């Protein structure tokens, strides 16, 4: 395939569409795309994700959204209703199971059958493809807030076809963000191409009067990811989506833990993405932001977990994220009960409400943090554009090869894996080794200085030991891994 960042023709979409719908028998129920469009148009405004997000952005408030999904439809509906009514979720998800994420629908089917037999969910999410159009519509119709598809699927085309026709109004993922952190051997060309399909499909819905929101997965590996890296990936995915006709985007960022860096990251994510979309001619695009509460290891203890959840909630609100994805006090133990899920929502909601009238005022430190994130992100994006000879699709593939974009601790062999992040003396994430990131001397010196400050405070030379200590620190309830 010749991957280019160019809008697909409707013919191309429709021709590939036939193959996609044939990959599982439930595909045939959505053959008539007009019927899906008609259904979407019949949804009341309170089910439209983009509308609720834009209203929140205007009001300056932060919406709360859980993760949740189980194998069977009625149980899944009961779960979502509980999170809506008891947890007070403003937005709902349907988190998709791992078999569906790998397009292994036969195994998902077995999971459904065994879940029926055993009376409990044997899948770690909701197998939307297997359940098909009508069952998915029952989910959408059973709640009063918008529902998003959250997954981790490299080839998410059939899943998109079924869930969009069923009235889901937001779709998470992307060709980079659902590949590099989640796969080992899947090429970027393949996943970006498959996500062009999804984006073009959403573009087609848009051209027919239906607004589907798109959300690239922000936190990537969730482990010491510097803001410039996740920003660059988010903005490239936004550009690729915008080219295919996507108009409403929520860009994501995973909490690093340092308040000033997190607030700077949220503000610059909004500012830079608007700047780049405009710069490359994508007019009339609407950007909102999502903040992911702490994606690293969680304390086993529930009270301590509440502390971590609450800090994420406070940071999201003070940083004016449009929405926050909520963890639960069971995070360290695996899939939470619905009660624990609602508890995470309630703790978050308490802070979102209490702090909605506050921001972090601009200080020298915040300004400096914003400036460095912008410089770094621009350096990466501009280098990607250059290496792609003016094409972001080609550029991102070549950029990963060359290591000018590089995600720390990613499993994919298409990722260079040469950069090494570590925390500075205030807990902000810096680069101990910038690998082949296209940074000028000034940026490199800045990182060196910041890491050196920490080394001086700890009485040791900066080294890889700091990275190890930072990763182990989390298990001890600390942000910065100090020597004993």
């Amino acid at each position, binding site marked *: 395939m010749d991957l280019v960042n160019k809008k697909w023709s409707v013919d191309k979409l429709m021709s590939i569409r036939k193959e996609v719908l044939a990959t599982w028998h439930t595909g045939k129920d959505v053959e008539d795309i007009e019927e899906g469009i008609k259904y979407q148009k019949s949804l009341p405004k309170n089910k439209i994700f983009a509308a609720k997000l834009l209203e929140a952005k205007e009001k300056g408030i932060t919406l709360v959204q859980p993760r949740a999904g189980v194998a069977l439809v009625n149980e899944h509906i009961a779960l979502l209703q509980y999170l809506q009514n008891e947890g007070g979720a403003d937005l709902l998800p349907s988190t998709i199971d791992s078999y569906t994420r790998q397009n292994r629908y036969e195994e998902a089917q077995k999971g459904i059958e065994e879940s029926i037999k055993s009376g409990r969910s044997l899948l770690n999410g909701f197998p939307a493809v297997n359940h098909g159009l009508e069952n998915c519509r029952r989910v959408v119709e059973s709640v009063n807030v918008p529902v998003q598809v959250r997954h981790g699927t490299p080839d998410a085309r059939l899943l998109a076809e079924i869930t969009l026709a069923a009235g889901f109004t937001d779709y998470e993922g992307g060709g980079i963000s659902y590949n590099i952190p989640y796969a*080992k051997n899947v090429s970027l060309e393949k996943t970006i191409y498959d996500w062009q399909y999804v984006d073009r499909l959403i573009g087609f819905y848009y051209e027919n009067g239906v607004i589907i929101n798109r959300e690239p997965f922000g936190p990537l590996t969730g482990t010491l990811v510097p803001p410039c890296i996740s920003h660059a990936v988010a903005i490239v995915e936004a550009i690729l989506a915008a080219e295919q006709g996507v108009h409403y985007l929520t860009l994501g960022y995973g909490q690093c833990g340092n308040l000033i860096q997190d607030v700077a990251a949220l503000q610059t994510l909004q500012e830079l993405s608007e700047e780049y979309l405009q710069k490359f001619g994508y007019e009339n695009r609407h950007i909102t932001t999502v903040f992911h509460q702490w994606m690293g290891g969680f304390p086993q203890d529930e009270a301590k977990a509440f502390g971590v959840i609450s800090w994420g909630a406070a940071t999201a609100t003070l940083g004016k994220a449009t929405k926050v994805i909520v963890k639960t006090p069971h995070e360290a133990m695996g899939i939470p009960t619905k009660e624990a899920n609602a508890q995470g929502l309630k703790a978050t909601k308490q802070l979102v409400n209490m702090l909605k009238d506050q921001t972090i005022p601009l200080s020298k430190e915040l300004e400096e943090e914003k400036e460095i994130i912008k410089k770094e992100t621009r350096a990466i994006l501009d280098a990607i554009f250059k290496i792609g000879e003016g094409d972001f699709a080609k550029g991102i593939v070549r950029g990963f090869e060359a290591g000018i974009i590089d995600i720390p601790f990613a*499993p994919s*062999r298409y990722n260079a894996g040469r950069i090494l992040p570590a925390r500075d003396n205030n807990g902000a994430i810096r680069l101990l080794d910038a690998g082949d990131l296209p940074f000028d001397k000034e940026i490199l010196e800045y990182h060196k200085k910041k890491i050196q400050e920490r080394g001086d405070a700890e009485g040791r030379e900066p080294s*890889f030991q700091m*990275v*190890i200590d930072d990763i182990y620190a989390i298990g001890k309830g600390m942000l910065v891994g100090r020597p004993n």
Partner: protein
Amino acid sequence: MGNKTIVTGVIGADVHAVGNRIIEYAFTQAGFNVVNIGVLASQEEFIQAAIETGAVAILVSSLYGHGEIDCRGLREKCQEAGIGDIILYAGGNLVVGKQEWEPVKEKFLKMGFNRVYPPGTSPDEAIADLKRDLNIED
């Protein structure tokens, strides 16, 4: 100064890449020639990589709790492949949930691993052990 090539990876259906990167970096810094086969690695991939590169040791990581099942029979497969004497280390969250460490260690030693490490071990410890096992001087 002898052969310092080692193979490392995360065994089974496990995609936890953080510790894997730490091990690669730490052993490389310590002077080893690290062949990292990454996450989602099968027993066969470990053995093939060791044969192809003439490695003297295999370091197996497992973080998702199924390490016991995934590691079973690795020593026997090495013997069948003609590298029966290769040094085998294992480490990570090797079993599901919280368990006493000593029985877990015994189980892995019986399975033919030369050394076994509990969660939270610093790579420095394994590096020092490997240098000792290979008679490498600092």
